[in-house]
C-alpha cells in the first residue's frame, strides 16, 4: 500500500510538470489553432538561462527563476511576432511547419552555443524528504505539485474573470467577430504566448530541480508528452490540460512500477488512442456541431 502511494506521488510529480507545460500548448491552440512545437524548446531556453544565472553569475535561485520566466516570455513573444504572425492568414499547415522549424532552430542554436554535453543544474533546495507512516514525499515534489496547482487555478480565474481573459475567450471562439467587437486580437494573441511561455519558464525551473541535467534537446520529450497531455484532456481547454497531465504522469509511474519499466510510453500512448477513439475531443472536450 505504501509502495503504491509512493508511486502515485512520483506520478503526480511528473504529471504536474506535464500539466504546466501542457497549459502553454492548450492556450495557444485554443486561440490561434496552432500547435506550437517550439514550446518544448522554450523549456530548454529557460533551463539554460537559469543555469547561467546560477552558475556563471552566481546569483540566488529566486533571481534565476525570475530570469528564466522573463527570457522565456521574450523568446515566446519574439517567436510569435517574427515566425507566426506573418502566417496567420495562410493555410494552417504552413504555421505548423514553421513551428517545427523554430523548434529545430532553437535546438541547434543551443547546440552551437553550449555544446551537446549535458550541463549539471545545481541543487537549489537541500531539504530532507518528509516521512509519514512509511510514505515519503520529497520537498521538490511537494513544491512542484503545489506551484502547478496554484498556477492553474490562477490561470483559470484569469481567463474567466478578467477583461483580458474574456478577450482571449472571445478571440478563440471567433477571431474575426472578436475584432469587429473592438478587441485587439494581435495584443490578445501576444498576451497568450507570453502567459504560456511564462508558465514554461516556471516549468523549466521545476523540471531542472527534479532532473538536474540541461542539454539542447532536453525540451523535446517533455514537450511531446505535454502535447499529448493537452490532447488527452481536450486541446484548447485549460482544466483539460491539467487533467491530461496528471493522468499521463500517474499512468506512466504505475506502469513502470507494476507492469513493465520499459513499456510505460506504449501504455501512455495506448491510453491516448483509446480516449480519442471513444471521445475524439479529449476527456473534457465538448462536441461542437458545425454550423451551416
Amino acid at each position, binding site marked *: 500500500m*505504501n509502495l503504491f502511494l509512493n508511486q502515485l506521488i512520483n506520478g503526480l510529480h*511528473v504529471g504536474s510538470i506535464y500539466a504546466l507545460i501542457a497549459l502553454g500548448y492548450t492556450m495557444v491552440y485554443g486561440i490561434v489553432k496552432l500547435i506550437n512545437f517550439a514550446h518544448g524548446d522554450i523549456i530548454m531556453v529557460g533551463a539554460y538561462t537559469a543555469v547561467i544565472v546560477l552558475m556563471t553569475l552566481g546569483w540566488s535561485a529566486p533571481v534565476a527563476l525570475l530570469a528564466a520566466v522573463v527570457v522565456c516570455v521574450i523568446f515566446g513573444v519574439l517567436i510569435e511576432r517574427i515566425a507566426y504572425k506573418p502566417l496567420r492568414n495562410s493555410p494552417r499547415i504552413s504555421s505548423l511547419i514553421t513551428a517545427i522549424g523554430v523548434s529545430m532552430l532553437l535546438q541547434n542554436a543551443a547546440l552551437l552555443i553550449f555544446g551537446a554535453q*549535458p550541463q*549539471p*543544474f545545481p541543487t537549489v533546495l537541500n531539504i530532507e524528504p518528509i516521512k509519514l507512516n512509511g510514505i515519503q514525499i520529497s520537498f521538490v*515534489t511537494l513544491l512542484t505539485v503545489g506551484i502547478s496547482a496554484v498556477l492553474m487555478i490562477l490561470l483559470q480565474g484569469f481567463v474567466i474573470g478578467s477583461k483580458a481573459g474574456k478577450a482571449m475567450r472571445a478571440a478563440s471562439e471567433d477571431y474575426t467577430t472578436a475584432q469587429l467587437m473592438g478587441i485587439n486580437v494581435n495584443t490578445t494573441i501576444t498576451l497568450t504566448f507570453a502567459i504560456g511561455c511564462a508558465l514554461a519558464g516556471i516549468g523549466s525551473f521545476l523540471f531542472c530541480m527534479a*532532473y*538536474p*541535467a540541461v542539454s539542447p534537446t532536453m525540451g523535446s520529450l517533455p514537450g511531446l508528452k505535454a502535447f499529448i497531455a493537452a490532447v488527452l484532456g481536450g486541446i484548447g481547454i485549460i482544466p483539460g490540460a491539467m487533467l491530461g497531465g496528471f493522468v499521463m504522469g500517474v499512468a506512466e*509511474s504505475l506502469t513502470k512500477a507494476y507492469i513493465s519499466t520499459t513499456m510505460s510510453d506504449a501504455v501512455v500512448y495506448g491510453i491516448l488512442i483509446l480516449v480519442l477513439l471513444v471521445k475524439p475531443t479529449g476527456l473534457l472536450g465538448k462536441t461542437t456541431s458545425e454550423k451551416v
Partner: protein
Amino acid sequence: MKKRSILSMLVVIALIISAALPVLAEDVIKIGGIGVLSGKYGMYGLAVREGVDLYVKQINEKGGVLGKQVQILWEDTQGNASEAINAYLKLSDMDVVGYIGAVLSGESKALAEVTAEDGVPQISPSATDYDVTTGRPNVFRTCFLDPFQAKAVAEYMAAEGIKKVAVLYDNATDYSNGLYEAFKAKSEELGVEIVAAEAAAYGDTDYKTQLTTIQNAKPEAVFLPYYGADAALILAQAKELGLDVNFYGADGIADIVDYVADKSVLTKVVYTDHFSTDAQSEIAVNFVKAFEAEYGKAPTISFSATGYDAAVVLLAAIEAAGSTDAKAIVDAIKATNLTAVSGNITFDDHNDPIKSIFFQTFDGEGNKFFLKQVDP
C-alpha cells in the same frame, strides 16, 4: 661557375642523405601507433599516445630494444574505421614491426582485420569490445573487458559483506546489458541476492519509479552499470527519495564528475577503473612521477597507463623474441608474464589480459579517490 653550382648541389645532396641516414640504416625499430587523436574521442587517443611516447622515450634512454633505438610513428584515424586501415597500409610500407592501437572498439576491429591477414602483432590499449581479438591470434589488448569488471564488482560487494543488492540498468545499450548479465551470473554464484532488477529505457530522465521500487526492496547497495551523464540524474533522484546506499558502477561511470553540480553525492559512488594515479606498486608510482615530469599533469585518463603497458608488452616481446620477425613477436606476447603499471599482465586463450583491477570512489570535491587494487 657551372662547376661550382654542381659542387654545391652535390654537397646539399650529401647533407640530405646523411641527415636521412639513421632512418635508412637498419638501426632503429619502428612501431606504429594508430588511433583517434582528434575530434570527440580525441582525448582518449591522446592519453594513449602520451603513455606510449613516455615509455618509448624511457627505453631509448636505457639503450633501446635489441641494441637499437625505438621509433614510434603515429597516425590519426579520427575515430574512423576506414582511416585505421589506410593508416595500416601506409605504415606497413615503412618497415613497421608492430602496432599499438587502435583506441576505440570499432576502429580496433577494422585494424585487427588487416593485421590478422599479415599476422603482425597488434596490441590495443583500450578496445573493450569482446570480438576485437576473436579468431585473431596476433591481436592483444591491455585493458580488461566489460564482463570482467562486472564480476569484479560482484566479488568486491561479497567481500564487503553485502548480501542484498539491487540493479538499475539500461536495457537498450549493450554496455549496460552486458554488465548486468555478467554481474547477475557472478552474484548468484557468490550468494549475493539481487532483490530488485529494474530496467530503464534509453534516454529516460525520470528514474524515480524504479528507485522507489528499489528502495522498497531494501537493498544494501545498488549496481548501476551506466555512463556518467545518466548516473548523475539517477543519483540526484535517489538523494531526493532518501535512498541512502552506495552505488557501484563500472569504468563508464568515471566521467560522472562532469555532470553533477553537487559533488558531495559522488562519495556514494564506487567504480572499477583500469588504473589509479594513487596505485601503490613501485612501477605505478614511478610511472605517475615520470608522467608528471614529462607532461606537467597527472595521468587522469586511465588509457595513458594502459597505453604505456601496451608499449611495455610489445617492446618486451620484441626483446624476448630476439628478432623483429612477426611470428616470433606474437609468440613472445602470448607468453607475456610481467608486472606493468596497471598491474600484472598475462594473456588468456582469447588474448584478453588477466590483470589487476582498481576500485575507486570520489572525495567530496569530485577528485578520484583510490580504494583498493584487486590482483588476479
